[in-house]
């Protein structure tokens, strides 16, 4: 509202964004509760976290760094690099899935595996959303601030998910 712009209020987009992060956080909090309740069951057979997943984690971390640099230096080139790294992360996740499938671990095989597939898929969908937003601001030359913050947040969520699954 331009008519009330002079008032010292938080920006509507900031409010919307922060609450959205709260929604995503609560989604993963729900999964966390399920994870800890399901884990003590006798049929819990742990799986090894696939190597590709660690590669993906490194790529995702690198994309956060390049995106942060892109934001600070206002560099479209680095923005495009981050986009590519984001896609590379998703590819690594897909490789990790096919690796698990090749070693005979399907969705119903073990609850640990089911959580791995499910959480990486839900996180991956959120990353795809972030990639779309990133592509949009890159192509239309809009401010990167909130998209970058979202991207870092999804990076942290992935580290959390990985910690949960690997611990």
């Amino acid at each position, binding site marked *: 509202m331009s008519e009330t712009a002079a008032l010292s209020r938080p920006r509507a987009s900031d409010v919307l964004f922060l609450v959205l992060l709260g929604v995503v956080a609560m989604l993963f909090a729900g999964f966390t509760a399920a994870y800890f309740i399901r884990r003590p069951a006798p*049929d819990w057979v742990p799986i090894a976290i696939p190597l590709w997943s660690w590669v993906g984690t490194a790529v995702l971390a690198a994309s956060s760094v390049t995106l942060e640099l892109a934001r600070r230096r206002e560099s479209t080139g680095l923005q495009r690099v981050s986009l590519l790294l984001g896609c590379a992360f998703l590819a690594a996740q897909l490789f990790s899935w096919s690796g698990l499938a090749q070693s005979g671990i399907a969705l119903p095989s073990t*609850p640990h595996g089911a959580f791995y597939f499910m959480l990486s898929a839900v996180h991956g969908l959120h990353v795809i959303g972030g990639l779309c937003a990133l592509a949009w601001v890159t192509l239309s030359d809009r401010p990167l601030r909130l998209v970058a913050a979202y991207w870092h947040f999804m990076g942290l969520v992935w580290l959390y998910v990985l910690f949960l699954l690997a611990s």
Partner: protein
Amino acid sequence: MAVAQEHAPQTFISKYVFSTDHKVIGLQYILTALFMGIVGSALAVLIRAQITWPEKALVTPENYISLVTMHGTIMVFFVVSLALVSGFGNFLIPLMLGARDMAYPFLNMLSYWTVVPACLLVLASFLVEGGAAAAGWTAYPPLSALPEAVPGSGLGQTLWLLAMALFIASFTMGGLNYIATILNCRARGMTLMRMPLTVWTYFMSAILGVLSFPPLTAAAIMLLLDRHGGTSFFLPEGLVFGNETLPHQGGTPLLFQHLFWFLGHPEVYVLVLPGIGITFDLLATFARRPIFGYRTSVWSLVVVGFLSMIVWGHHMYVTGMNPYVGEYFSIATVLITAPFAVLGLNLVASLWRSRIRMEVPMYWALGTIAVIGLGGFGGLFLATSISDIYFHESFFVVGHFHLMIGVVTVLSALGGTYYWFPKMFGRKMSVGLAKLHFWTTYLPVVAVFALMHFQGLSGLLRRYYDHTIYEFQEAGIGLALPITILVFVVTGSQLVFIYNFFVSMRRGEVASANPWNGTTLEWTAPSPAPHGNWPGALPVVDRHPYDYDPAAPAEADFKPQGTVA
């Protein structure tokens, strides 16, 4: 600034169908809820008919549990949520805050057009093979997780899940928009502590909604994987279907119940709080005095909101939970009575030294207060695990939760409709028909659910297809016929309302901008409010929302919260 009106949409499609105007979207929600309410009421009548005349076998046992499931789902999510939270919320928040529209009008439109397919999916599920979902509005596994469990567990349950996914997406978009609008788009001078209590309740309701729905989304994803991916999040070992043991093992249906009620309990407050907020606003206008204890009401709302998120286990006392856990949930639940008693006291005390004008909306406001007290009283017995274990499977629970999330919400929404109708359409509803509607709704509906408490006390169990074949349930079944007759009266009475609503829309008495001499900002806008809400500049707020003076002469006993230049 006539800017707003220059942007007013012109074509029928952009003005009434794909509109981004919060008032049009609010009415779209309300009318959608009205339609879904007719469906939900028809299901209720069928349920009552089956309970009352089981020997006629009006429906099959499989269809009966579908009826109960879909009645609950439709009424909670597609009637009360849509009408009271999304409908009135959209209509009122910008008008009461002195804003041109919601913070994100396009998101608002998207939110409405996401819930429309959800409604269609719910309705379509009655037509598919096996019928509609039958696992209760709570969708408990294993009925909801095994597509072959009962007829309704098949395609009907899948459609139910899809509809709920769309509903949650829509409701989350709405909640984000409410919070952004309330924090960002208030008029000059409208501090948080000057907001009408209605807006405060929508604020709390939106916060609760966006925080408590995501864990249910997580549960729904796991349920989908159990149904279609072969996983065992909620399915234990040893389930036998036909003559085969199912391969699932290790899961626990209790996990779903926890995740469901982590949403389910705050959802009750998402629905009830706006009802209380609307009652506060109606009360101030027709008692002609400031609300008693505005600040304590606001802080009580915040405390209620917080407590509502940590008491979900009281829906699960009979699951064999650890008694210490049950004790915690009992204590936490009973704690809610403290802030709630403050709210109730403030409502009643707002009548003290007032000058009551018994206009139509006031009937509903006073009626709502009484029901909050009655429903809350029954809640004490269900909050305490010891008594709940006796009552849990009985009609006592049915009576209690209908009073709170059914009657309180619908009474306040109806009161709100009579109150804000002039702002919506520039006309008033017929007073005679409105009073007829009130008395033929209020007395029977309270009697229906009060009597159900007594049925529960005498041991009548809920969800039963035919009570008469169990000797131990005989004591309560005698009340079934009187209750059903009263249900028919209430249902018929709503036809009077619908008639009054649609006829008054075109032929009602023309209303002025401020027909009730109200103080809040929506009454400074023209009736009906144009696109952009105020033709000129936005109002500037210089006082608290309820500046009435019962000692002043009748026509000069109020000062509007803001002035329009």
